């Protein structure tokens, strides 16, 4: 048996290196491939809608679709500028009792 294991040794590095490299690169490529085509459009439209009420720049909305087994999670993250939001809420001319900014459009250039 010794001669057998001498002639047919356990896996030498190259095939296992190949496997490892493939697993890493494919995990990355599969994640990128699964992004549905509508995501960039959704991001733009979200920006337009939320932007009606809050001051936003494109990089403040992050949309991410994750798949785990049979379920998908659509994650929409809107990062808000704290100082600007606080300033608007605390604005003295704002009538008392008015609901949050959602009901009114912020003045242009605010």
């Amino acid at each position, binding site marked *: *048996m010794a*001669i*057998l294991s001498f*002639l*047919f*040794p*356990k*896996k*030498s*590095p*190259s*095939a*296992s290196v*190949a*496997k490892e*490299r*493939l*697993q890493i*690169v*494919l995990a990355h*490529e*599969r994640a990128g*491939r699964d992004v549905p085509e509508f995501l960039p459009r959704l991001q733009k439209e979200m920006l337009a809608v939320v932007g009606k009420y809050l001051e936003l720049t494109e990089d403040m909305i992050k949309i991410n679709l994750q798949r785990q087994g049979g379920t998908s999670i659509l994650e929409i993250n809107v990062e808000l500028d704290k100082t600007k939001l606080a300033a608007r809420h605390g604005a003295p001319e704002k009538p008392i009792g008015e609901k949050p900014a959602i009901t009114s459009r912020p003045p242009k250039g605010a």
Partner: protein
Amino acid sequence: MSKVITVTSGKGGVGKTTTSAAFATGLAQRGHKTVVVDFDVGLRNLDLIMGCERRVVFDFINVINGDANLNQALIKDKRVDNLYIFPTSQTRDKDALRKDGVEKIMDELRDNFEYIVCDSPAGIEQGAMSALYHADAAIIVTNPEVSSVRDSDRILGMLASKSRRAELNQPPVEEFLLLTRYAPDRVARGEMLSITDVQEILSVPLLGVIPESETVLKASNTGQPVILDAESTAGRAYSDAVARFLGEQREMRFLTTERKGLLRSLFGKA
């Protein structure tokens, strides 16, 4: 019910045309009326591998353009009953495979044949996408080598999203892995990805393993689909793959080296 089987891989030179020729011949040998279609517009080669290059009169593009009808373009194989070859054109017009034109031809083929084996070109251009689009089943031809495995994975992604079945929300394309140019001795030495390695990475059911074999070149030299060489390991491995495709249970063969067999017999059963 007719079935479109697309033989694809992404990467070139892995054995798509050899496989298409062998597989179509195998299906016909088993009594199924089969046509093998060359989708590699501009780089026609299936005719050479099938040994009918001198009988090509009309081709795929002639039929699309209405210059000939399907029956004028189909070449009946002289060795095997029920087998027809549909050659492609040597035109350099990349957009020759118009979607509606291909669709019409595929419908006509479906009416006339049990199996339509589509030999896809390499790459992800129009010809490859067109062959992939019509697939009911796909045979992913893969060499145990990094670039081939990566391209196969890419093609699997496209089958899931860009095929007609995906577009029409039908049950997905059936996928099968065919490992070709497999060298068991190199796998044993750890120099080549093993069957298990490739399967773990691609997770597609294994249809067969075709060992690296000198007879494949001999077959293409003479224009004989390798499956007709019933003596060769490659020919027998293709026969097994066809049988499995048709639902038979067959053990995988030719996965150990000749040398190992010899050693085993010298040293007794291990």
